[in-house]
């Protein structure tokens, strides 16, 4: 297991290299000089040149790249074009907001998804199965900004149960988390159901029945742990997607998170800030995947052979 983890961490090196290179090239492959774009189309040449000097954009590419990477390694993402403040300081509070939002939504979707999936699988072809799967399909196909707007309309504006916008108080958490968690819950429910159905037909479940184990124990002890193995992968992917996918929800509920920050940065042509958010999200995504793979191996003893 330790060997495996070390090997996986080594394998991250080329991935992270790829990510930084891609982000770096992104800036240089866009038509026009980066400095010109940042300064604005009508900016005079001497302003652009000064900016190039300040940002080191006049250096050869490989030197720029080495500096770029070594800065990132020190969590130095440069200075925001808009505010002239270090980007890392700007992002930090927003990052925690987005992370919180993603974590709560994932917990909600795991909770609802797994329970619904189990019920659905155990009572296959029953009314509850059909209803759960219909709701899941609905949850999956509904655009979440629309769901967010609807929730806000009814629960915040019409009935006043929750505050319509903002982030921080427990009340403010509810609606955005439901909005974001729904799609994940639907995916997890469907995955749990199919995985559970497959596991229930396995030989070792028959063995457990022949042993005299109660049906309930068979489901929760013998089947669930096996059925969760593929579900873990889906949960990891969901979480990764949430980190970068909160943009619309943050906009709808006026939450000051990373999603909004990146949108604002794009609109303001704040290149260093866009780069920083992309890198942070990518690195996070890669690490979430690593954690998923490790827990996958932990659950699935069979593949831990070396």
């Amino acid at each position: 297991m330790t060997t495996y983890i070390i090997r996986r961490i080594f394998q991250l090196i080329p991935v992270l290299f790829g990510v930084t290179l891609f982000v770096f090239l992104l800036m240089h492959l866009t038509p026009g000089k980066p400095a010109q774009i940042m300064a604005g189309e009508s900016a005079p040449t001497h302003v652009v040149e000064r900016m190039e000097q300040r940002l080191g954009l006049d250096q050869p590419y490989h030197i720029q790249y080495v500096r770029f990477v070594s800065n990132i390694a020190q969590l130095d993402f440069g200075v925001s074009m808009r505010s002239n403040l270090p980007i890392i300081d700007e992002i930090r509070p927003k990052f925690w907001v987005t992370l919180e939002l993603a974590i709560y939504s994932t917990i909600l979707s795991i909770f609802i998804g797994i329970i619904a999936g189990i019920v659905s699988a155990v009572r296959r072809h029953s009314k509850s199965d059909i209803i759960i799967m219909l709701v899941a399909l609905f949850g999956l196909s509904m655009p979440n900004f629309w769901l967010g707007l609807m929730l806000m309309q009814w629960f915040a504006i019409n009935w006043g149960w929750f505050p319509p916008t903002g982030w921080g108080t427990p009340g403010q958490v509810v609606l955005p988390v439901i909005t974001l968690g729904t799609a994940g819950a639907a995916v997890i429910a469907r995955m749990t159901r199919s995985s559970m159905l497959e596991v229930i037909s396995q030989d070792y479940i028959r063995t457990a029945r022949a042993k005299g184990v109660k049906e309930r124990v068979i489901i929760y002890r013998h089947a669930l742990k096996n059925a969760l193995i593929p579900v873990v992968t889906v949960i990891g992917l969901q979480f990764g997607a949430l980190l970068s996918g909160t943009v619309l929800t943050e906009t709808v509920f006026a939450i000051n998170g990373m999603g909004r920050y990146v949108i604002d940065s794009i609109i303001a042509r704040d290149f260093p800030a866009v780069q920083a958010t992309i890198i942070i999200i990518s690195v996070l995504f890669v690490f979430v995947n690593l954690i998923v793979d490790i827990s996958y191996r932990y659950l699935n003893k069979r593949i831990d052979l070396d």
Partner: protein
Amino acid sequence: MSKENSILKINNLQTSFFLEGDNEVKAVDGVTFDVPKGKTLGIVGESGSGKSITAMSILKLIGHPGKIKGGEILFNDQNLVESSEKEMRKIRGNRISMIFQEPMTSLNPVYTVGQQISESYSIHQGLSKKESKKKVIEMLKLVGIPSPEKRINQYPFELSGGMRQRVMIAMALACRPELLIADEPTTALDVTIQAQILELIRELQDELGMSVIFITHDLGVVAETCDYVAVMYCGKVVEYADVKTLFKNPRHPYTVGLLNSLPRSDMDQEELIPIKGTVPSPDDMPEGCRFAPRCPFATDLCREKLPNLDDIGDAEQIRCWIYTDEWDGDPEVKVYEPQK
């Protein structure tokens, strides 16, 4: 058939699967046999004969869309067909245990060997993990697993096929059942490992005094392990006899056909005499004797009317018109001539 000393009596058991569109597949179609106490009954048959479904029916492990439609399963005078699920759970793994064909997939991959065996003790004897640990080790020792103290913490994937089957046996025998149902327990194993496992089952049977139902398609295994044999074809028992009689003087043309098509490792044969044709599909079951279309002796009677499973002698039963007064074919017909 020894009527008085049976641990299990099955009378006219019927198990069907109900597929979409009112399509009923009669997997077990009126099966009747006895398992004498302390003895081994072999159930032989080819795929589709219903032998495994019969075994699953005894423990009432038939799930949707299958259903036990009728008949009796008398286990020590308790009719299991009418027993509740709760009563069945007390029997399963406790008084009647089962082992399966695929040791590779029959153990739960995410729990250790020890956890899986001790579960039997916690269900049926209410023992805690600590209390059962000693018993689990004892059990593993009994089935010949070396260094059991280490093995209890291993996962199934860490064991070879033969070892896993030993674990399955340990788990099945944990609560000292009165009856063990072994469904093709050695089919997936190599010959030398099969020999070990067969020997083990035999030894444990002597030691624990249990009765065994041995389900297999391998006539060699039957000859070596069983006392009595029921031959099944298309959901019905066609012949029941003690093992010596069955191999020395088989009566049913199907039994004879099986023996004649078997390539032997212990003698040279001129040629194999196969049974012609194939097993009929369940939705196209012949009306009369199920074997009539493939039987070299079949007459119109066979094709029209299903013969009964009749007693012949003390412990022999046969389902064939040839051995009845109504037989309308060659009166001198000799079904079996031993091969040289």
